[in-house]
């Protein structure tokens, strides 16, 4: 793992949080969208908050795809789950929302999970992958022979 790869992981966390927050902010301007006026959703793109949110979410998706090209799915998903924590902290410091004891516990658990996975290997090597595949087919043939 190089410094640049950690930056990409941080990008996933930050861009998904920021994109979602901007979208939510923009959709508040629009008010409730009823199922009978779905065309209102098309006009939502004209709202600057929504446009910015979509751009950030596209950036998030690019970072996510990049990370998946060099790291395991079971590494990327927990490693970027700090976005849940980020949402709570943004709500606390910018919107002055209270963080209850159970939410603090949730933040601690997520942070611990991130620490656990980030300290381990980021990708299963192709040799290990072949080995686990061979083991799987071995047990399969054994079962067939039985």
């Amino acid at each position, binding site marked *: 793992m190089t410094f640049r790869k950690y930056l990409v992981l941080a990008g996933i966390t930050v861009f998904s949080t920021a994109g979602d927050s901007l979208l939510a902010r923009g959709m508040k301007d629009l008010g409730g969208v009823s199922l009978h006026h779905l065309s209102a959703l098309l006009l939502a793109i004209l709202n600057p908050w929504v446009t910015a949110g979509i751009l950030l979410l596209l950036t998030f998706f690019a970072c996510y795809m990049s990370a998946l*090209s*060099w790291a395991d799915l079971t590494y990327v998903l927990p490693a970027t789950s700090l976005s849940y924590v980020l949402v709570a902290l943004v709500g606390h410091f910018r919107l002055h929302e209270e963080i209850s004891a159970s939410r603090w516990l*949730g933040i601690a*658990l997520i942070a611990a999970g991130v620490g656990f996975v980030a300290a381990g290997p980021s990708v299963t090597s192709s040799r290990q992958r072949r080995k*686990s*595949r061979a083991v799987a087919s071995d047990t399969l043939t054994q079962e067939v022979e039985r």
Partner: protein
Amino acid sequence: MTNLYAWAAIALIILASTTGDVLLSHAMKRVGDVGDLWKRRGMLAVVARILTTPTFALGLMAMAVAFYSLLFGLSWGNLSLVVPASASLTFVANAVAARIFLHEQVGRRRWLAAVLVACGVVLMAV
């Protein structure tokens, strides 16, 4: 009754988003390290290679299904049930699916991480 619908939607969200994540991960592993490819062949080559990988399009479709199931789930159930339940269970489902279909080595460390994050996400929503 509406609760049953909400849980059906939650199950659909988990199934679709796990399928999507596994397919996208499979596609990107096939494309190979995007950074290296960019350096050697340029951005257009990266984009072309990703778009011509079949599992990428399938993964995007699965993600779209997951998104619409979320919308339906939200119209039937509570936000405070549907979002944390689907998000936390997706972490665990992904660990299982990645082990079976992508042959990733999911050791004790990664199981623990998936379960800790799943519990944390539930607590955040309480």
